């Protein structure tokens, strides 16, 4: 039997609900979806449809009100530490990159590795290797304000990969970029997936960005309205 066929999906969302304001605002209303390992999925839909809320739940930045989320077959609520989950299972990329402005590029990657098993020297090497993989070797000692928008987003991707996560969660990663930079970032995602086999879930408004994905999942009013079957496994 094919190993990929028996391996659990990267992400499984089962009937998840999320409400705010003591139940007055229902952001997610019974969302269910599955994302295969190594798949690149774009989550699309109008503003306020619940895309980012779902992404935050998957990143363990928030908890669902009801329902289950399984990551690589393990129930998210069963992870002993959400900090460890965020560090080792998923890598986050935000629209506004959320880098630390007082640090250099290489230091921004290194801080994400504090407390992992690598030595100080190993962390430095790993950070430089990641910067090289996102074509930022020549900018490693530049502080964030000195980087362009595209460079910052590439740096954010390098940081997301610091601890070898199997899943990259990206919230509007090209939303603040010009089109040339956006193309560069999407090329980078493509390359990362090819080289590292990571699963990518990307929330976007932008049709061009969404089209780069293997599969689109459409959301509206807190529900999944169109989710084609898992397209491929890597």
């Amino acid at each position, binding site marked *: 039997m094919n190993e990929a066929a028996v391996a659990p999906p990267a992400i499984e969302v089962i009937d998840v609900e999320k409400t705010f304001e003591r139940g007055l605002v229902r952001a997610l209303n019974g969302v269910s979806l599955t994302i295969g390992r190594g798949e690149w999925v774009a989550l699309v839909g109008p503003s306020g449809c619940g895309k980012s809320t779902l992404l*935050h739940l998957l*990143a363990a*930045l*928030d908890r669902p009100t009801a329902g289950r989320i399984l990551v690589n077959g393990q129930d998210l609520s069963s992870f002993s*530490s959400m*900090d*460890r989950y*965020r*560090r*080792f299972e998923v890598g*986050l990329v*935000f629209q506004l990159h*959320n*880098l*630390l402005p*007082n*640090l250099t590029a*290489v*230091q921004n990657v*290194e*801080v*994400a590795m*504090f*407390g992992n098993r690598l030595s*100080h020297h190993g*962390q*430095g090497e790993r950070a430089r290797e990641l910067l090289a993989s996102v074509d930022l070797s020549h900018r490693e000692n530049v502080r964030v304000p000195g980087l362009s928008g595209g460079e910052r987003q590439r740096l954010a991707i390098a*940081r*997301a990969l*610091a*601890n070898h996560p199997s899943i990259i969660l990206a919230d509007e990663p090209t939303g603040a970029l010009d089109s040339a930079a956006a193309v560069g970032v999407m090329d980078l995602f493509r390359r990362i997936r090819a080289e590292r086999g990571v699963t990518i879930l990307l929330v976007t408004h932008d049709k061009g960005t969404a089209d780069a994905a293997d599969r689109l999942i459409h959301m509206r009013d807190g529900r999944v309205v169109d989710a084609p079957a898992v397209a491929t496994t890597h």
Partner: protein
Amino acid sequence: MYFLSLVVRNVYTRKVRSSLTGVAIAISIAIVVTMGVLTHSLKKTAANILHTANADFTVAQKGLADITFSSLEEKDLEAVGQYEGVRSVMGLLIAIVKVDEERPSFLELGLPASQLEDFGITIVAGRKYGEGAPDEVILGFRAAEQLGKTVGDRITLNQPAPHEYEVVGIYSTGQVYGDSASMLPIKRLQADQRKIGVITMMFVRVNEGTDIAALRKKIEDEHPQLATVQSEEDFGHVDRNLQLISAANLGVTYLALVIGSVTVLNTMLLSVFERTREFGILRAVGWSRLRVLLCVMFEAVAVSLSGAMMGVGFGFLAVKLLERSPQMIGVFEPDYPSGVFRNALAIAFGMAFFGAVFPAIRAAILRPLDAIRHE
């Protein structure tokens, strides 16, 4: 990059605020160091006085603010000398007189010439004064240096009626209090001070094998106006100033801790508030609450320790200035015990801990999502 490098960088990034906080801490620590050195040095001086003349214990009037105010009668001296086990007893009169504007508090010690050697006086130049000589004085070598006097010079001491003396000798006692004073026959000093038959304190030596504690108790029980002093701890019975200074030292230490802690609290709270988003990012990339907490705490420790180092420097400077003040000449010889610096270090850590614990917890319990959205 090391975790501690990040901590230092975070402190350095806010250098103006960190420096101002450090200066506030430095001032608190400087006060603690100054008071600590002052208290310790005065205690040491007191201990030296107690051990003058190789006395087993000292007797003075009970419950005074300052031992120099003690007033005993010579018949007390005789009474103490009668106790079983007492080998010898020596009476000393202390007067504080004005030499000039720069030396408003100059010590005169009155003692019979025959007891100078027993008292621990070593004549280093000239000779000792004659028993009945009305105009002879000997100066401690420190006093002679400060006054610019030597054997054969004349000196006018501003007693109730200024009187001119001839300096017939220079002496040494081995302790700053005595070496910064002058000595003259006790009868002469009693007459000058209009204190005929009065002494300030007495130094008691006992025979070998005498139960000193029992003897002291007996003297105090039978002479309630007297207090016996054997150790620095007893000194407060005859000199409340030292007790007050010790209490003030303790009070200042606590006050410094509170002021420093509030300063650190203010700085760290502001810092945590400003960096809410940063902490959210760090939590989002996997930092644990503990690591965030330690980051804030270590930043506070870095600021506090920098302030403490400055404070120790300021403290040294303050002690040096105090040492040169006219009121302290002859009374105060600074001594720098390691305990004062341990105390300063402990207070700096205390300031960091008490000042940073609340902001650190606040930073650690931030919900990452809310923190990231913080503007």
